[in-house]
């Protein structure tokens, strides 16, 4: 689904900034995609990835084919990426993020409904099922329930596990200047909620699907 060319000044600036962000990500990380379990596809998907750095969704976005970038939206916290200023401009206009509240506001649609609406419009989502950045030494935190609720409400949408490697060394916690090191993004085999599959079983299966993509975790 190709987006129509938008010629408003703000949209043009957003496109230029997007190009700069992608160029910078490539310069620093020389990031390389590995489509191990599936190929790029324009249909609506949920890319669920490990989350260790603020740059994670930038890296996934960078390795997607140009045509898919405009329709692939990161799911981001409103308290960080909302508001005003440069960060908000990047969040809203450059990456077209779906902004959700970490603590659901009862007067607003529930975050999972917001995400479902975006999928129905044909967008794909970049989703971090750990719920927060992993700054511990553990390889992957336990998943929150969001991924389960999302797939239960949208059973036709493929869930693609995506392992982002090395970005936490490029931009460790507490540092804002990145060190240039090679990164890779590995796309695994899509999964779906099985019939009669419970929440815990599904989340465990999804987590395993993501972990098998991590280097040194013996890919099948």
């Amino acid at each position, binding site marked *: 689904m190709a987006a129509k060319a938008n010629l408003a000044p703000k949209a043009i600036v957003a496109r230029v900034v997007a190009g700069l962000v992608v160029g910078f990500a490539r310069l620093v990380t*020389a990031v*390389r995609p590995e489509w191990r379990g599936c190929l790029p596809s324009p249909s609506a998907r949920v890319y669920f990835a490990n989350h260790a750095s603020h740059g994670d969704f930038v890296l996934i976005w960078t390795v997607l084919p140009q045509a898919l970038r405009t329709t692939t939206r990161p799911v981001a916290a409103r308290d960080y990426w909302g508001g005003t200023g440069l960060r908000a401009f990047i969040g809203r206009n450059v990456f077209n993020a779906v902004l959700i509240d970490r603590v659901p506001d009862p007067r607003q649609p529930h975050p999972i409904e917001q995400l479902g609406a975006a999928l129905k419009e044909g967008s794909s989502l970049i989703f971090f099922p750990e719920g927060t950045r992993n700054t511990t030494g553990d390889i992957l935190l336990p998943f929150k329930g969001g991924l389960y609720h999302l797939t239960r409400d949208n059973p036709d949408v493929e869930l693609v596990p995506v392992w982002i490697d*090395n970005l936490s*060394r490029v931009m*460790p*916690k507490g*540092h804002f*200047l990145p*060190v*240039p*090191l*090679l990164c890779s993004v590995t796309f695994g085999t899509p999964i779906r909620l099985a019939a009669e599959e419970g929440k815990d079983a599904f989340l465990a299966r999804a987590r395993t699907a993501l972990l098998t993509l991590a280097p040194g975790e013996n890919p099948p």
Partner: protein
Amino acid sequence: MSAQTEFLWLSLGVAGVLVVATLIGQILAKRAGPEPGAVIVNLNQRIHAWWVMVGLIAGAFLFGKAGVILLFAFASFAALREFLTLTPTRLGDHWALLAVFLLALPIQYYLIWIEWYGLYSIFIPVYGFLSLSIIAAIGGDTTRFLERISFVQWGLMICVFCLSHVPAFLTLDIPGYNGKQLLLIAFLVIVVQGSDVLQYVFGKLLGRHKVAPSLSPSKTWEGLIGGVASASLIGMALWKITPFAPLQAGLIALVICLMGFFGGLVMSAIKRDRGVKDWGHMIEGHGGILDRLDSVIFAAPIMFHITRYWFSA
């Protein structure tokens, strides 16, 4: 002949070799049918990448000193990025790593730009070496301290210091040869990379006996002797573009071919230790930029000092 004419002839010669290589690669692929073997696919990827690399170097030469310094500064950056990816650095090394990229690398190439031999020849081995250990010590993390700091120092020496000796040829004052120093760089690159290619060709055609089975399965005695001997002869034949006499050119070519071979061996040992086959994926068919430059990195400083000691004013 003027430097421009010689450069033109050299470019035509290299392009001619690449045209022949491309034809051979295409014929082999045709003969192999719809599903050519991995060696042939890889061969054609390598030849294709050579066109790009030769184009980049020739393009940089057209811009003279600025072009060559910028090209090798970027090569150093990309090499360092690959090298440090494989190192066991920890969070506490972040400042040391940043200093390497943001200070040491640009300063080294700036010193070459202003042709300050007295400083660029000691800046990294003395000042870089000592200050990196200080930065890491201030970081306070003593876990595997020596190993971590050695990795960063090694990366800086290999990827920046040694490699920067390629553009450093432009700073040499050689009586009767000034204005032509770019051709010395062409000589170095053609001989050393030619040696790599010819070692590959002789190895693939005649290779039987492995030189260093524990380090590299692809290096054979037949490849080594055939490649180094023929590349040294090419070096001798190129004496006219150098300030050297024919025999001197042949001897220098022999020395840099051997240094290039040992460079490949040392870098293979590091890759083996880190458990990888290639340094990266930057150059299709070859691997990372370090896979392509390992020989030049070891040859450049030696040829630089031979030339400086015996031939410069």
